[in-house]
């Protein structure tokens, strides 16, 4: 189709039909302010802050929702436009509890930026805040929802609908009473919200934020009686730099380790270690289930088996597909495996009483905060993971400590529980757990490496919504002969909207798989709800690239080759799925209500 020609601020531009005025302006590097618009979401066009003027037309046009047409003359910065935008922002601020100096979102807040850019003074519209009643819900260990900061842009509602297909948030009531609400205005922790934090990543204001534990961590660090252990998830190291002024897609593992030591953590360890351990446990569980189904013909064996490392996914399936819970691997997530080992095996090793250990994790994820607070997660006899920080919170702490992050020299994780394989690194990307599991399971069964160039199982990589891969098993070792010639059918989904599609197909029998990987967040953990803001497809692709680079550069690429994991089995766990494993590394799930 022919391009459409128009002028924006008197500059000629030629774009594809269907391009919006906002996108056309972006092409000319003209920035139009937006609030309800977000690249990952469909257009809502409800805030009107993006209006532009079409020469000759009376009404201003919302540029995010208006497609280009031939010969248009658009002005993005006329007086009419400026005045209109200013009134919009002014009105929003008039019913907004604008206590920026005390607000967690300050600095990162889009409303604050616009208010300052448009010089919203004090003598504009009257302040409606004292006249309104607002609800602040800070009862969830993951997410705080503060209606007094909400501008009703509905990015959160669209996020939860379109990316997650959950609809935990809705628009309730009407007119001036209209608000973003959960089912019956219940607290977030009671409803179907999976704590994934995707809405937090997209809320332009401080209305949806993570519950932060920064002060609790500082307090613990400054308690001389406590030994502070920190673990860092795979996806943190490819995104932390973004929150500290670096460009997207850089691996900052060494600097992150150095910064954690400078902050005062006594043991700086790696969740990647337990990611490798997860692969051993979960991989063996899969093989055991296959054996149960194929050889023993045991009707109680549930296939397909799904992964269990994403706590957003776990809470989702507990609410929405409780009848499929037996299909979820019982293996705990790497965070919780780590926590359970820290206060048992590791405490013993470093000769510190477990009650004197404070176990902190740094996660790309808000749902991990909820997970750490689940009553099941006390396998060590203590709370296995005491405090969970997001990537964003760690960045904030590094800033608070006055550390010049970019200038730090690279350092190495401590040992024990600091060594990991490339298979663990890719846990942070969609398809990574599947790839890691296949690298191990295939070798267990056949004694040979997976038949993919450089161990790179490319069919399960990338940002496609749902990926399927079938691996044919041939020339098995004798004890796995029942798998000879079998085709292992796998499926990978990221974002719960895609997981729902897969689960519906599995439930109806339309699709049959053996193993399904689900990550609650778009792109996997690298796109997690605790990662630096902003997020969009391009940024996620950068982080993903960084992850696979890190994998390729690792001397060890397969979980079962991790020498520390091997040693852990020798010294402590004895065997995969053994007695100790069951006690510490596996868990159970609960059915939850459907709201």
């Amino acid at each position, binding site marked *: 189709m022919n391009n459409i020609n128009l002028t924006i601020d008197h500059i000629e531009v030629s774009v594809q039909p269907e391009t919006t005025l906002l996108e056309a302006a972006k092409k000319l590097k003209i920035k139009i302010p937006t609030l309800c618009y977000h690249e990952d979401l469909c257009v809502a066009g409800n805030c009107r802050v993006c209006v532009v003027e079409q020469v000759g037309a009376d009404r201003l046009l919302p540029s995010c929702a208006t497609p280009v047409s031939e010969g248009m003359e658009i002005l993005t910065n006329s007086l009419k436009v400026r005045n209109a935008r200013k009134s919009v922002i002014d009105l929003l601020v008039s019913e907004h509890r604008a206590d920026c100096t005390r607000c967690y979102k300050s600095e990162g807040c889009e409303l604050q930026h616009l208010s300052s850019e448009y010089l919203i003074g004090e003598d504009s519209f009257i302040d409606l805040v004292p006249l309104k009643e607002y609800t602040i819900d800070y009862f969830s260990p993951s997410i705080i929802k503060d209606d007094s900061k909400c501008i009703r842009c509905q990015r959160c509602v669209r996020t939860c609908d379109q990316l997650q297909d959950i609809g935990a948030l809705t*628009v309730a009531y*009407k007119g001036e009473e209209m608000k973003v609400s959960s089912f019956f205005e219940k607290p977030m922790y009671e409803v179907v919200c999976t704590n994934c934090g995707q809405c937090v990543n997209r809320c332009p204001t401080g209305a949806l934020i993570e519950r932060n534990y920064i002060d609790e961590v500082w307090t613990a660090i400054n308690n001389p009686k406590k030994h502070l252990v920190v673990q860092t998830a795979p996806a943190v190291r490819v995104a932390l730099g973004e929150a500290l002024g670096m460009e997207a897609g850089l691996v900052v593992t060494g600097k992150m380790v150095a910064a954690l030591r400078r902050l005062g953590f006594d043991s700086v360890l790696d969740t990647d270690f337990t990611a490798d351990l997860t692969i051993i446990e979960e991989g063996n569980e899969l093989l055991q289930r296959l054996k149960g189904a194929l050889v023993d013909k045991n009707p109680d064996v549930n296939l397909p088996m799904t992964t269990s490392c994403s706590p957003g996914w776990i809470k989702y399936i507990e609410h929405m597909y409780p009848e499929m819970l037996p299909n979820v691997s019982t293996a705990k997530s790497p965070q919780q495996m780590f926590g359970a080992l820290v206060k048992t095996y590791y405490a013993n090793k470093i000769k510190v009483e477990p009650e004197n250990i404070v176990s902190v994790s740094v996660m790309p994820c808000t749902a991990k905060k909820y997970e750490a607070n689940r009553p099941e997660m006390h396998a060590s006899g203590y709370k296995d993971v005491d405090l969970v920080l997001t990537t964003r919170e760690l960045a904030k702490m590094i800033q608070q400590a006055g550390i010049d992050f970019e200038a730090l020299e690279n350092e190495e994780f401590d040992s024990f529980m600091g060594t990991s394989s490339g298979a663990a690194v890719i846990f942070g990307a969609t398809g990574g757990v599947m790839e890691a599991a296949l690298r191990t399971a295939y070798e267990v069964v056949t004694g040979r490496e997976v038949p993919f160039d450089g161990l790179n199982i490319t069919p399960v990589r990338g940002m496609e919504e749902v990926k399927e891969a079938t691996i044919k098993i041939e020339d098995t070792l004798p004890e796995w002969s029942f798998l000879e010639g079998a085709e292992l059918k796998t499926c990978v989904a990221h974002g719960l909207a895609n997981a729902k599609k897969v689960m519906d197909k599995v439930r109806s029998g339309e699709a049959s798989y053996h193993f399904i990987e689900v990550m609650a967040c778009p792109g996997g953990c690298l796109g997690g709800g605790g990662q630096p803001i902003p997020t969009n497809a391009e940024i996620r692709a950068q982080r993903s690239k960084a992850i696979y680079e890190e994998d390729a550069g690792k001397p060890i690429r397969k979980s079962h080759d991790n020498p520390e994991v091997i040693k852990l089995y020798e010294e402590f766990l004895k065997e995969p799925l053994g007695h100790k494993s069951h006690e510490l590394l596996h868990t159970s799930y609960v059915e939850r209500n459907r709201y």
Partner: protein
Amino acid sequence: MTEMKNLVKSLADNYGRYHESLLPILQGVVEKKRFLSEEAMVEVAREIDISAAHVFGTASFYSFLNTSPMGEYVVRVCKTITCMMHGKNLIIQELEKQLKIKLGETSHDGKFTLLETNCLGQCHKGPAMLINDTPYTNLTPDKVRDIIQSLKQNDLVSNAATQVN
């Protein structure tokens, strides 16, 4: 299956399981149960595979889809501008006096609920109110007193009747 499940299922069999079916199904539940309980909304959500929060969002948007238990007689007084100009506040005052409840409340015996609503399309005969499905127009405080008295009376009569039976 619970009674609510059955009700929702039969409504869905009737109206379909599409997004468009939501409103008629909710209306159907209100007709039978007088209000939408949490249970009802969850069942509707499950039946047409949408989020329970969205069912609540829709219900909260329409003032006729009650989300809390209602009295046997739901009195809705128009609060829109024409009726307001014709003294709707005095009508409410009188209703509050007669029913011994405040706006938004339900009487102890579960007989009456007093609410405000938007324009009833009776502006030329305002102030107007609706009691269940019956509109009452050109209201005056006196008229209101008579209406309420006669409803209470009716109830007494029918109660007496059932007692006799």
